């Protein structure tokens, strides 16, 4: 880390590894939220946060290798995340209709 | 460094002109609607009511801002800021004219020429939904919430036909940059028919234009699609709990959105700043002639005044119009001001169509509105895109 800090050249641009560290930080924040939160919608939002962090690292690698396939993969991740959000929120609506609660601790049995 | 200074100056000019224009678009709207309804409109505050926007601004600023009880304070205050921010930021990619040189620096009449300019406008207009949804929810009022949700659902539903209708001329122009799209519409077919996207190309984009205008009416919550915010439906919808400057912010956002969508229609379908007939046939004289004509009308009515003070104000306006006509005819300024004039003329025509339709049509019921979007407009836009793509592929 110290070598990396010393080798910063202000004209050379931001090192790619910093983008990856940012992606790792966002991902771990998403994991923390996923494990700690109780409301099912917030848990779902932390999943989206994790997906965004992964997208950022894909785009960073696409920049490093100068290929566009990283962008294509990010595009597909975005599309799948949108589809997942739509179906997941529909499921949440159904669960709320049946269980009257959004607390995941109380939705803990298949039988009502 | 000079880039920053030039950009700051452009920013100041565009912001000042835009904010003044927003106030005066409201004056034009009130006058036009009044004359359609055979009455006068604002005529007391200043000559012909021209100081009415100023009076409105003073009233709105000095009014008491009442916050409803148990409203979520942060989001209640953030919603109009968000709405206005998104509405104003989309003006930053709209080109108003060609490049010109001043004091040795080349300046574009545009804040920034993004090479994904059209996508930027679509992105910012999708973010504009947040202001309205938050305003509806944060007011702690059932009617407000329903109006906000309805308005957001309407805006999202009509974004789809709007984007598809925008994609068709993009296929023909081949670029996403707004300046590039206007440049691809330069020139004349047969010597006198302009190569605008609605007249020419493998498939004249008249259907895209109509679909885009209909979707634009719904996106900006204008009549006939203004059920979520009408005064006599749902007690004025999502902005019922807002007063003074927050209310003014929502109105500024609405008019600014109107200016944006009319500008986008002008740039993509009506050829931007290219004149209607070629310069060789004298289109450079259209601007001074129209302005001089307006001056002559003012002078004539000033000499036969209908009201006593018209004897003074109308000739003053005539002098202003003749001055502008002279400015437009000044040879060194002609290549700079004439494209700007044509762009503003087309923009004003589309804004006048918006106001005209507001004065004329009744509003849709909400379920009619949504089924119109999903069952008619979206398939029509898809079909239009398919036909355009097929013809473009056939031709090239």
């Amino acid at each position, binding site marked *: 880390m110290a070598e*990396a800090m010393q080798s910063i050249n202000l004209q050379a641009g931001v090192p790619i590894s910093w983008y990856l560290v*940012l992606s790792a930080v966002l991902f771990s924040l998403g994991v923390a939220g996923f494990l700690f939160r109780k409301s099912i919608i917030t848990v779902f*939002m932390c999943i989206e946060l994790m997906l965004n962090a992964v997208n950022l690292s894909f785009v960073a690698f*696409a*920049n490093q290798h100068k290929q566009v396939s990283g*962008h294509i993969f990010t595009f597909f991740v975005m599309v799948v995340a949108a589809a997942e959000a739509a179906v997941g929120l529909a499921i949440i609506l159904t669960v709320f209709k049946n269980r009257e609660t959004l607390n995941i601790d109380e939705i803990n049995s298949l039988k009502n | 460094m000079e880039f920053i200074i030039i950009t700051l100056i452009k920013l100041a000019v565009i912001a000042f002109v835009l904010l003044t224009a927003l106030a005066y678009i409201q004056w034009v709207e009130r006058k036009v609607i009044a004359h359609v309804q055979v009455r006068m409109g604002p005529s007391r505050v200043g000559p012909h009511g021209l100081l009415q926007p100023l009076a409105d601004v003073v009233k709105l600023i000095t009014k008491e801002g009442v916050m409803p009880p148990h409203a979520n304070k942060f*989001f209640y205050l953030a919603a109009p800021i968000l709405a206005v921010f998104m509405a104003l930021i989309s003006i930053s990619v709209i080109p108003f004219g060609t490049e010109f040189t001043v004091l040795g620096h080349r300046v574009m009449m545009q804040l920034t020429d993004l090479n994904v300019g059209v996508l930027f406008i679509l*992105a910012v207009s*999708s973010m504009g939904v947040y202001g309205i949804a938050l305003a509806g929810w944060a007011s702690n009022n059932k009617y407000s919430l329903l109006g906000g949700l309805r308005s957001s659902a309407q805006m999202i539903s009509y974004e789809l036909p709007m984007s598809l209708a925008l994609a068709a001329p993009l296929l023909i122009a081949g670029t996403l940059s707004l300046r590039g799209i206007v440049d691809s519409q330069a020139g004349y077919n047969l010597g006198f028919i302009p190569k605008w996207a609605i007249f020419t190309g493998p498939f004249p984009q008249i259907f895209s234009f109509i679909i885009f205008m209909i979707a634009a009416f719904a996106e900006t919550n204008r009549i006939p699609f203004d059920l979520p915010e009408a005064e006599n439906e749902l007690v004025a919808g999502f902005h019922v709990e807002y007063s003074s400057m927050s209310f003014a912010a929502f109105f500024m956002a609405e008019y600014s959105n109107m200016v944006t969508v009319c500008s986008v229609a002008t740039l993509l379908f009506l050829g931007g700043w290219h004149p209607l007939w070629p310069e060789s046939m004298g289109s450079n004289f259209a601007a001074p002639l129209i302005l001089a004509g307006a001056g002559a009308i003012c002078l004539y009515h000033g000499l036969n005044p209908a009201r006593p003070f018209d004897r003074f104000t109308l000739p003053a306006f005539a002098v202003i119009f003749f001055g502008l006509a002279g400015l437009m005819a000044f040879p060194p300024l002609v290549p700079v001001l004439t494209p700007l004039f044509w762009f503003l003329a087309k923009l004003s025509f589309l804004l006048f169509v918006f106001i005209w339709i507001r004065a004329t049509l009744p509003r849709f019921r909400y379920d009619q509105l949504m089924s119109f979007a999903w069952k008619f407009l979206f398939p029509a836009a898809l079909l239009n895109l398919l036909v355009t793509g097929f013809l473009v592929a056939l031709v090239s």
Partner: protein
Amino acid sequence: MDFLFFFLFAFIAVACAVSVVVQKHPIASALSLVGVMASIAVLYLQLGAEFLAMAQIIVYAGAVMVLFIFVIMLLNAGAESRAGRSYAAQLMGPPLLVALMASLGFAIMRGFPGGGTVKFDSFQGGTAQNIGYALFTDYLLPFEVTSVLILVAILGAIVLARKEMD
């Protein structure tokens, strides 16, 4: 200049992400997530992915998050209650999280020491034209499969949500 933009928007992204995890009310979490997505979009611009930046705002921040906000408003989800949390989790959680982040960061910095740098305009291949070309030639099959996936998702969402909210 690149450093300034990177630090500014990375700071905004991390602050909004912390806000997503920490806020009690779901609407505040949702709006913080919109902030995260917007700052990630700016970082994409810096990485040369201009089409992807606009697509992120149009799709993620402009559609998916609006859907989240709709559902939160429809379900009238209130602020979470703080009851029933174990003290052990509250005490051990944040330090373990920081340890996870630090170890990930350390592993990354050790694994990519050189790696290349990012400036504006260092990668010009992210234009709409390049992405369109790649999508329709190399990645045509995944593209078509994804369209079928979206269709199935739309049908699923309509069937699931149809009879419930009346």
